[in-house]
C-alpha cells in the first residue's frame, strides 16, 4: 500500500472573473492514504470547497486548473474524459454536503433517490432495487426504513436527511468520501451522531474520508491528520496530535487559541486579526503575512517555503524553525 489513494500534487486553480484573475489555490499538495480520515480546516474562502470541486472535476467554467495533478489510485483524474468521470463520481468518490435537506431532490421520495444512484452505478434488477434501497437506509441506522422510503425530504428532519445523503453516498461503496461541512445547520447532538456515523462507516467500508470543515475541534476529534488552509495555500499539514502539541504556523496557533476548549476560559479566546487577503488585487508570497505578528522581510520578499519538520508534519512558514524551538 505504497501508493496513496488520493495524491494531489502542486495543484493551482485560477478563477477568471470580470474583475481579473483570482488565484484561488496555489501549489496545493497533499495525500490521503487508504482508510485514512483527513480534515481540511480553514475559514470561509480559504479554498477548501474548491479543492473538493477540483477532485470531482465539478469546478464551474470560470475555474481553471493551471497546473498540477490529482492522482487517484495511481491515475490522474484531470486527464479523464467527462464521460469517464461519470463513473468516478458517486461510485469511486462521493460527496455529502452541508444543508442536507436542500441537497435532496424536493419532489422525489428519498427511497427513489437512493434507488436512482444504485441503478446508475450498478447492474441491479428492478426487484432488487427496492431491497438495496432499504438496506442502504438500514446501514445508516434509520428507523423503520420501509416507512421512510416513501417520505419526501421536507417530511424528514435535517439529521435524517443527512443520514439519507450518507446512505446515498456510500451505497456504491466508494473508496473516498468527501464530506463538505456535513454538520453545518444541524444541532449539536445531531452533529455528533452524524460524525460518529461517518466515522463508523468509513472504518466499516475501509473508506478514506476527506472532511472539510472550519471547526478545528471537530477535525481534531474525528480525523487522523489535519490540513490547515489559509487563502488558497496549505499552511500546515500534520497528524492531529502533533498539530495540537506542536503547532508551527502562526495561523494554526491562532486557530487553536481561537477554539474554545473545555478547560479554557471563554475570555481567553483570541481573535485572529484582519481578514483573508483580497487575492484579486494582492499578490503575496505568504498570504498570511498581512495578519501575522512575526512577519519580517524574509516573509514578504521570498517565495513561500515549505519545510518538512518530520515525515508527517510540514509547514509553509519561513520562521517555522524558530517557532519550533520557541
Amino acid at each position, binding site marked *: 500500500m505504497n501508493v496513496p489513494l488520493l495524491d494531489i500534487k502542486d495543484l493551482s486553480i485560477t478563477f477568471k472573473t470580470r474583475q481579473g484573475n483570482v488565484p484561488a489555490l496555489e501549489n496545493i499538495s497533499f495525500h490521503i492514504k487508504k482508510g485514512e480520515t483527513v480534515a481540511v480546516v480553514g475559514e470561509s474562502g480559504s479554498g477548501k470547497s474548491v479543492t473538493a470541486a477540483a477532485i*470531482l472535476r*465539478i469546478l464551474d467554467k470560470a475555474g481553471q486548473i493551471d497546473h498540477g495533478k490529482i492522482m487517484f489510485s495511481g491515475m490522474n483524474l484531470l486527464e479523464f474524459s467527462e464521460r469517464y468521470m*461519470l*463513473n*468516478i*463520481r*458517486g*461510485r469511486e468518490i*462521493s*460527496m455529502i*454536503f452541508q*444543508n442536507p435537506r*436542500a*441537497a*435532496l*431532490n*424536493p*419532489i*422525489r421520495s428519498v427511497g427513489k433517490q437512493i434507488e*436512482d*444512484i444504485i441503478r*446508475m*452505478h450498478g447492474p441491479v434488477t428492478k426487484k432488487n432495487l427496492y431491497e438495496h434501497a432499504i438496506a442502504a437506509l438500514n446501514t445508516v441506522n434509520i428507523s423503520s426504513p420501509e416507512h421512510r422510503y*416513501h417520505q*419526501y425530504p*421536507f*417530511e424528514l428532519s435535517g439529521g435524517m436527511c443527512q443520514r439519507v*445523503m450518507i446512505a*446515498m*453516498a456510500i451505497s456504491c461503496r466508494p473508496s473516498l468520501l468527501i464530506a463538505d461541512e456535513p454538520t453545518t445547520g444541524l444541532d449539536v447532538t445531531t452533529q455528533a451522531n452524524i460524525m460518529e456515523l461517518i466515522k463508523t462507516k468509513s472504518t466499516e467500508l475501509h473508506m478514506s474520508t476527506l472532511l472539510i470543515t472550519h471547526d478545528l475541534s471537530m477535525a481534531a476529534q474525528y480525523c487522523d491528520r489535519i490540513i490547515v488552509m489559509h487563502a488558497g495555500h496549505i499552511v500546515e499539514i500534520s497528524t492531529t496530535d502533533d498539530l495540537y502539541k506542536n503547532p508551527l504556523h502562526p495561523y494554526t496557533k491562532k486557530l487553536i487559541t481561537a477554539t474554545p476548549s473545555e478547560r479554557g476560559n471563554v475570555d481567553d479566546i483570541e481573535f485572529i486579526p484582519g481578514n483573508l487577503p483580497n487575492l484579486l488585487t494582492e499578490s503575496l508570497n505568504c498570504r498570511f503575512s498581512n495578519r501575522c505578528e512575526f512577519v519580517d522581510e524574509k516573509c514578504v520578499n521570498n517565495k513561500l517555503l515549505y519545510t518538512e519538520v518530520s515525515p508527517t508534519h510540514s509547514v509553509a512558514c519561513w520562521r517555522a524553525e524558530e517557532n519550533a524551538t520557541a
Partner: protein
Amino acid sequence: MKNLKHIKYVLTENPITFGSVILFLLFILTAIFGPLLIPFDPLASDTENALNPPSALHWFGTDQLGRDVFSRVVVATRLDLFIALVAVILSFVVGSILGSLAGYYGGWTDRIVGRFLDTIMAFPLFVLAMAIVAALGNTIENIVYATAIINLPFYARVARAEVNVLRNSPFVEAALVSGNSHMKLLCFQIFPNAMPPMMVQLSLNMGWAILNAAGLSFIGLGVKPPDAEWGIMVAEGANYIISGEWWVALFPGAVLMLAVFCFNLLGDGLRDIFDPRKRS
C-alpha cells in the same frame, strides 16, 4: 395509491378546484360522446324553423338556417378542445425544450433562444396568429400551428426562469457529484421541479388557446362554415343580436366563456397535484 389519495385530497380541500375539475371532465365527456348524443344533425338546415327562440325542442333555439344551436354547441366542443389541446401540447413541448436548454446552458444558447422568443413577442400575438393562418392557408392544422407559435414564448420563459434558478440549487450539485450526466440532470432532476409552475401556465394557456382559435374563426380565418365552432357561431349570431335573436350568439359565447373560466381555475389545482410539498 398514494398519488390517488393526494389527488383526492387536493380536490376535496379546495371546492373551486373541485368545481373546475368537474367542469373539465364534463367538457371532455362532451367532446368525446357529445356527437353521439345530440338530438339534431348540427349541419341540417330547416329554413321554416329559422331563428326560433329556445324551447323544449330546441334548448338553445335555432339559428338563421334553422340549425339546432344546442347540437352545434355540443359538436363544436370537440373541435375547439382539440385545437386548443394540440396547440398547447405542441407549445409546451417545444417551449420546455427551448427554455430548459437556454436556462441550463446559458451563454449563447440563452441569447439565441431569448432573441428568437423576443421576436415572437414583439408582434401583437393575435395579429401574428392571423398573419400565420393567412399566409399558410385557412386550415385547422394551421390554426393549431399559429396558436402553438404565439403561446411558445410563455412556456419557454417560464421553463427558462425555473431551470436557471434550479440549476444552481444544492440538490442539482449533489446529483452531479453522484454521477449524473448533464442531460440526466436536466431531464430527471431539474425539469420535474419546474413542472408545478409549468402546469399553471399550461392550464391558463388552454383558456387562451381556445379564445384564440375562436377569435380566428370569428374574424373568418381558420374553421370555415358550415362546420360548427364556437367562434364562428358567435360571429354568425352577432348579426342577429340587434334584431332580438340573442340566443344564436349567447349560448356558444357562454360555453366558450365557461371553458376558458374552467381552464383558468384548473391551473392552481394542477399545480397542487404536481407538487408533493402540498402533500401533508
